[in-house]
């Protein structure tokens, strides 16, 4: 039912700078869409504009059938009338209310009957395991419990869109893993559209059905998580998504081959005329292979650092002037200062032109 459409939405707080610029996006109904980007990229501002807490400077926002904001006609629908719920980063629980009061405040304001309120409170409390905490004040709760109260407070209103602003950033690592699973389950159970803001690319990859990657207020890429990972639209997308960070090496692009130092890689199809010759090649840690013996298409390097993670070994290897991070799960680990040979194993090459745009 409600696709959320952002059409050329811009927002500036001062005259000189744009927080969000010309953002166009169609968030499909029932999706788990993540607004991802570094801090200050405009993701929270975008979320707040969808919520109606912030008015865009120009553009149009449509939720389902109704235009909730339009710079042209001046239409504006109040936040409370947009049928959405927002969980704040700080949770924004009211400290002078008990847990139960926090959860039921919205129903009470909307003059829902006492019986109905209690019924829904019981349901939501048991769903989120808050039964035993209802009489507490929020300062007496742990971080994870506060988070669940914040979610319960929004869910009890049964919104069709759920907005989450970095909800996990205040939790410790273990709890964060647990809550990720819980949020995914929540998404399945409620069927609501979720718009999720985070700067944590791993969180975005693991949880979303769609990712909108933003930088400096501009949309960089909008697609499925794996799509971004495998076919980043530009250098920024390649760099921001994926851990450890992608390796970039300077390379030279010819008509039908790519050369890096002594290595020349043939291209499956010819590159466009107007690109190159200088490009950069993006190589993820798992797209590089290591071996002790030299073979064709391999370059020599020296191991700088060994970083075991348990399942895998990561190596930093110096090749010519570059330092590459390489994943390797062979049986015999390498050691510091070992001489190794590096091989490119990628299925599809990620090549970026001078301006950082991906080259097909």
């Amino acid at each position, binding site marked *: 039912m409600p696709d959320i459409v952002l059409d050329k939405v811009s927002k500036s707080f001062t005259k000189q700078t744009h927080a969000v610029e010309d953002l166009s996006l169609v968030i499909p109904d029932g999706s788990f869409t993540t607004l991802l980007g570094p801090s200050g990229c405009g993701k929270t501002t975008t979320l707040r504009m969808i919520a109606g807490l912030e008015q865009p400077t120009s553009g149009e926002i449509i939720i389902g059938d109704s235009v909730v904001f339009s710079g042209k006609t001046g239409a504006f629908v109040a936040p409370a009338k947009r049928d959405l719920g927002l969980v704040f980063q700080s949770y924004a629980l009211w*400290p002078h209310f008990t847990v139960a009061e926090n959860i039921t405040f919205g129903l009470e304001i909307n003059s829902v009957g006492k019986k109905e309120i209690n019924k829904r409170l019981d349901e939501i409390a048991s769903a989120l395991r808050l039964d035993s905490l209802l009489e507490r004040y929020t*300062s007496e709760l742990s971080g994870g419990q506060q988070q669940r109260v914040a979610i319960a407070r929004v869910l009890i209103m049964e919104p069709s869109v759920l907005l989450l602003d970095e909800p996990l950033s205040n939790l410790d690592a273990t709890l964060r893993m647990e809550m990720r699973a819980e949020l995914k389950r929540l998404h399945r159970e409620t069927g609501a559209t979720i718009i999720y803001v985070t700067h944590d690319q791993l969180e975005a990859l693991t949880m979303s059905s769609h990712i909108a990657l933003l930088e400096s207020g501009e949309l960089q890429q909008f697609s499925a998580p794996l799509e971004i990972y495998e076919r980043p639209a530009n250098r920024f997308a390649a760099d921001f998504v994926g851990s450890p960070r992608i390796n970039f090496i300077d390379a030279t692009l010819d008509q039908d081959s790519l050369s890096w130092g002594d290595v020349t890689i043939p291209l499956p199809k010819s590159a466009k005329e107007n690109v190159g010759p200088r490009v950069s090649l993006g190589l993820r840690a798992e797209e590089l292979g290591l071996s002790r013996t030299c073979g064709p298409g391999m370059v020599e390097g020296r191991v700088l650092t060994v970083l075991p993670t348990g399942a895998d070994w990561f190596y930093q290897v110096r090749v010519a002037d570059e330092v590459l991070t390489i994943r390797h799960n062979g049986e015999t680990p390498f050691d510091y200062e070992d001489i190794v040979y590096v091989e490119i194993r990628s299925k599809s090459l990620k090549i970026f032109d001078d301006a950082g745009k991906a080259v097909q």
Partner: protein
Amino acid sequence: MSLALNRWRFYVTPERVLSVCFIVLLAYLVVVPLFMMIQETFIVHPLERFQIPGSKVNDFTLAHWYRFFISESAYTFFYRPLVNTLIISFGLSFLALLIGGALAWLVVRTDMPLKETISNWAVVPYILPSWTLALAWISLFKNDRIGGEKGIVSALTGFEPPDWFAYGLFPITITLALHYFPFAFLLIGGALRNIDAQLEESASLVGAGRLAIIRRITIPLIVPSIMAAFLLSFARGLGTFGTPAFLGGPVREFVLSTSLYGNLIGQRPGLGYLAALVMIVIGMLVLYMDHRMVGARKSFVTVAGKGARLGLIELGRWRWALAGFILFFLFSVIVVPLVALAIDTVMMIPGVYSWENLTLHYWIGEASYSIGLGTGEAGILKNPQILSALKNTFSLAFVVAVVTCLMGILVGYAIVKRRGTLISKCLDQISFLPYLIPSIALGATLLAMFAVPRGPIPSLHGSFLLLVIVCSISALPYAVKAGISAMRQVGGELEEAALMAGAGWWTRMRKIIVPIQKSTYFAGMLLPFISVTRELSLVILLVTPTTQLATTISLLFTDRGWYPYTNGIVFILTVVVVGCTVLSRRVMGTSLAKGLGG
């Protein structure tokens, strides 16, 4: 080195030693005097021998308690002043909350123009001596009840203000509220500013309207600060002496503080101390009520939300009108009174407002029994008595500022370092105690303690030291509060890092703790300096002719009806105090709000 010595060294840390020293010192200067004063209400004083037949000095007696609470004169001594005090204190606190709260809300939450100017001006009434407004009120609205001359209003319009308007409870409540509303403005403004905007946004998201948000979310969130502001104005109003003395005296309306003064200065010290005791009890009761109402569970600190821009409420076309009205209000409670005071100092014959009557006689004239009021006193700037009082005032203010600042640093340090321990809690409580004691009553306890030699300690009555002690104690709670929050900001790790680097305690204090907190301390010194400069209630019982202060000497002149002198002295104090505030703002960027804490 022996094991025992090693142990001893580990145990005797600077903060432990400091804590113990301060607890002993403060117990001696705050708690013991309280008990001494209670004891004084049960014994016969030299002057009371003849009122209590057959008694000797220092005999045990219940006569004071009987006279004060039960006898026929109890109404005059106690009940009437008590009722007056309660009416005034409650009235002024409500009024101050109303004015200060509304101002704070307008400044913080709306798009009213000229906010900065308004915020700066709104604290000035508190910087002025509390009885400036009382004097100005008299200058403006004086009627013929207190002698021939007319007030400015009556002289200009011919309208004679009625007694209830010119003197007594009504003007006392109004002028005190106008003096104390900056408390509410600062405290409520701070709380409003700190509210996480998301708390209100999340209410608006579920459909709460603007009024519902204010009523259900905003106000409950700032209740602790509202209560704190109420408590502060109530306690200060309770212990204030100047205003009720000036405005209540002419119609013989007494409050507890003036009754206390009258009894102590007169021949009934027992009754005076009882009045002081009652004031302290009232102060504590109000605090207890505050505790009960706010409660521990709901006592939360409002933490600022990240990046939460507060949406300003648009006032539309009212914004300039409102700003204008507020500026006019501030102008009338700051500039108008000062001008009124100034005018009265340059009128040869008081009450005659004409150009021929202009004179600088009261500023630079020679002593004369025939010119003007014929006081036989030289003009303010030539009068040795007044000049020496001014000198006393400023030396006292300076010494107290330094002493309280040092105590604030050290006590704050000791409390934070030993946080959670019994000794830290004890020190925290005891340094907060003076906050609860109305200032004139605090003076009374120290009078009870030090008026006579006790053991090895000689009588301190009439000494500069006693004034330093009483002013320092009274400023201590603020200083300690500032010290604690400064220490918390620094955090233990910065000091521990220096400790690991091998710095001794003295070096750590000198090189790490103090430099980092410099500006906080400076703000911490400004507040005591200002309050001592304009302090009257606290010292009125303790000054003697040799230690006369500017404020107390102006009271003397008022008693004789020599208003030009009083007004001139108050004018000088005002200029100095406002000057200091502005200067420190310019130079150090400190503001009074910082010193008050919150």
